[in-house]
C-alpha cells in the first residue's frame, strides 16, 4: 500500500528544472534509496515533501490526504520527518537533550514552562533507550557539538526518528564519514528503522550501501526518474549504468 505519493511534482529554479513532473510513490514498510548524480533533484524532492520548499505545481499525498501546502509542523503531524545532508543538531545542548526535545515536540510538551525537563521520567527514559539503540548510550551527557562526525550523523537520524514518523527521509546519512563508519552507521540505522517498522527513504551516493540495504531503488536524473526497481534490477539497468555508475552492463 502506498504511504506517500506525488503527482506531477515540479520545482524550477530559474531555467533549472530541479524536479520535473515527478510521480513518486513510497510503499509502507519499505527501505527505499533515492540515488542520482549531484544536481539530479533528490534533495529538492525531499525538500518539497518535507515542506522545506513548496512546489511550483503538482500534488503530494500521505495516504489520501493532500499535504502539498501544509506547513512543516503539520507535515510532521502527518507523519513525515527528515534528517539533513549537513548535520543539523543543537550543538550547545547535550546529546540527551537533542533527542528529548524531539520527544517533547512529538508529545506536545514543549510549551511546559514550569516543569523541569529532566524530571520527565518517561521522556528521559525513552530518549536514553533510543540513544542506546543508536549506539550513543555512553554519550548522553556529552554536548552534541563535541561528537565525532559519525556520531553526529547517527544523532541526526536519532533526533528525526524520535518523532516516530510514519515516513523518515534520511539525506545522505553517511556523507563525510570513513568507509568503516559508513557500514556501522547504515547497519545501525537500518536495524533501528526496520525494527521500528518505519518506512524510510534514504538519499545516498555510495552504490554499495544502496544495493546492500535497500528494498527498492529509485534513480533520478535531471529532475526526472530514470529507473525504479529492486537493487538487482537497477544494477542491470543500462541507463543507470550509463548515467550513474559510469559503466556499461553489456560489456
Amino acid at each position: 500500500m502506498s504511504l506517500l505519493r506525488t503527482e506531477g511534482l515540479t520545482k524550477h529554479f530559474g531555467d533549472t528544472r530541479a524536479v520535473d513532473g515527478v510521480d513518486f510513490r513510497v510503499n509502507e514498510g519499505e527501505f527505499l534509496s533515492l540515488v542520482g548524480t549531484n544536481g539530479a533533484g533528490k534533495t529538492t524532492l525531499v525538500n518539497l515533501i518535507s515542506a522545506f520548499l513548496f512546489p511550483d505545481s503538482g500534488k503530494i499525498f500521505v495516504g489520501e490526504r493532500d499535504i502539498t501546502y501544509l506547513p512543516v509542523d503539520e507535515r510532521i503531524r502527518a507523519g513525515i520527518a527528515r534528517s539533513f545532508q549537513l548535520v543539523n543538531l543543537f550543538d550547545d545542548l547535550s546529546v540527551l537533550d537533542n533527542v528529548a526535545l524531539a520527544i517533547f515536540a512529538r508529545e506536545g510538551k514543549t510549551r511546559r514552562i514550569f516543569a523541569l525537563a529532566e524530571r520527565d521520567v518517561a521522556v528521559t527514559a525513552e530518549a536514553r533507550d533510543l540513544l542506546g539503540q543508536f549506539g550513543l548510550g555512553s554519550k548522553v551527557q556529552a554536548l552534541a557539538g563535541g561528537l565525532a562526525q559519525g556520531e553526529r550523523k547517527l544523532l541526526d537520524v536519532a533526533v528525526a526518528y524520535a518523532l516516530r514518523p510514519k515516513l523518515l527521509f534520511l539525506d545522505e546519512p553517511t556523507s563525510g564519514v570513513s568507509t568503516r563508519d559508513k557500514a556501522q552507521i547504515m547497519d545501525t540505522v537500518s536495524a533501528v528503522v526496520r525494527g521500528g517498522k518505519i518506512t524510510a527513504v534514504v538519499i545516498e551516493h555510495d552504490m554499495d550501501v544502496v544495493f546492500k540495504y535497500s528494498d527498492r531503488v529509485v534513480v533520478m536524473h535531471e529532475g526526472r526518474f530514470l529507473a525504479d526497481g529492486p537493487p538487482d534490477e537497477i544494477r542491470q539497468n543500462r541507463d543507470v549504468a550509463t548515467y550513474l555508475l559510469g559503466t556499461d552492463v553489456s560489456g
Partner: protein
Amino acid sequence: MSAARPGPFGARAIAGAAVLVILFLVPAVAGTYQTQLLTYGLTLAIAALGFNLLLGYTGLLSFGHSAYLGAGAYAVAFMMRYLGVSSMELFLLGGIVFSGLLAALFGIVCVRHTRIFFAILTLALSQVLWTLAYKFFWITGGTDGIRVPFANVTLLGGLVSFPGPDAFPRFVTHYYYYVLVVFAVCAALMWLIVHSPFGKTLQAIRDNETRARFLGVRIWRYRWLAFLVSGTFTGLAGTLWVPLNGLVTPDVLYWPQSGKIVFFAVLGGFRTFFGPIVGAVTFNYLEVYAVALTEYWQLALGIVLIVLVTFLPAGIVGTAIRVSARLKPRGEASS
C-alpha cells in the same frame, strides 16, 4: 564509608542557599548606603535575568529593554499619582500587567525578525515610548517626571509603612528584604523556565532554528512567549526600582538604559544563568564608584566593556567557570 557527595544540582542549590544567607545578613553588617546600593543591584539583576532569556537562551539581542523597565516604573508612578495606590503588591501587579501587555504587543512586531533587524526594531519601539513619555508631559510630567516618594509606599498589604522624618534607613532595610525575596522568587522561576521543556526549546531555536522547525516547533510562537516573559521580568524590575529611586523620568526609557542592560549580560556572561545577575550587581557598583571618581565615568565604563569583549568574551562568570574547569584534576573535570 564516605558520605554521599551532592550532585551538581544539589551543589548548586547549596551554593545558592549560602549566597542567600549572606545576602540576608547584609543590612546587619553594612550601612544604609551599601544596603541601598545592593538593592539597586538586585532590582537590576531581575531585569538582567529577563533580558538574558532572550539573548542567552533564545539568541535574540534586544536593544530596547528600557521600554519594559520604563513600563514597570511608569506603572507605579501612574498608579500612585492618578489612582492613589500605595501598596507595593498592587504596584507589582500593575507593573507586571502593564509591561506584560507592552511586551506582548511589541513582541508581535519584533519576533518575526532576527539579528540586526530584531535589535533595531526593539530599539525603535523603545524610542517611540521615550518620545511619548517626553512629549505627553501633562500625563508623564515630561522631563520633570513623576515623584514616587518612599514614604507613600506600603509593603505587605499595608502592614509596613514608612511615616516620619527618619524613616529612610528603615525603608532601605525593609525594602532590601522585600526586593531580596522577590529577586529570589524571580531567580528560582527563571531557573525553572530555562530548564523546562519550553526553555530547552528556546535554546534549540537559538542553536539551530531550521532543525527546531523540523521538530514541529512553531518558532515565532516560542520567540513571542520568550519576549513576553523577558519583558515582564524586566518590567517587574522597573516596578521595584522606582520606590528606591523616588522619581521616574523619560530617562528610564532612553536607549542608554537598554545599553546598560546589554552591558549587564555581557559583563557577567550571557551564556551562563548567573552571569547576568553578577553582571548587573557589578555594573551597579562600577557605575556608582566611577561616577564618584571621575566626571569621565562613561569613558571608564567604555574601557571596561572593550577589555571585556576583547579579553573576557565569556564575561565574569563564564570566565570563572572556564578557569575552574581547567584547574580541576582531569578525572574530575571529565566526570
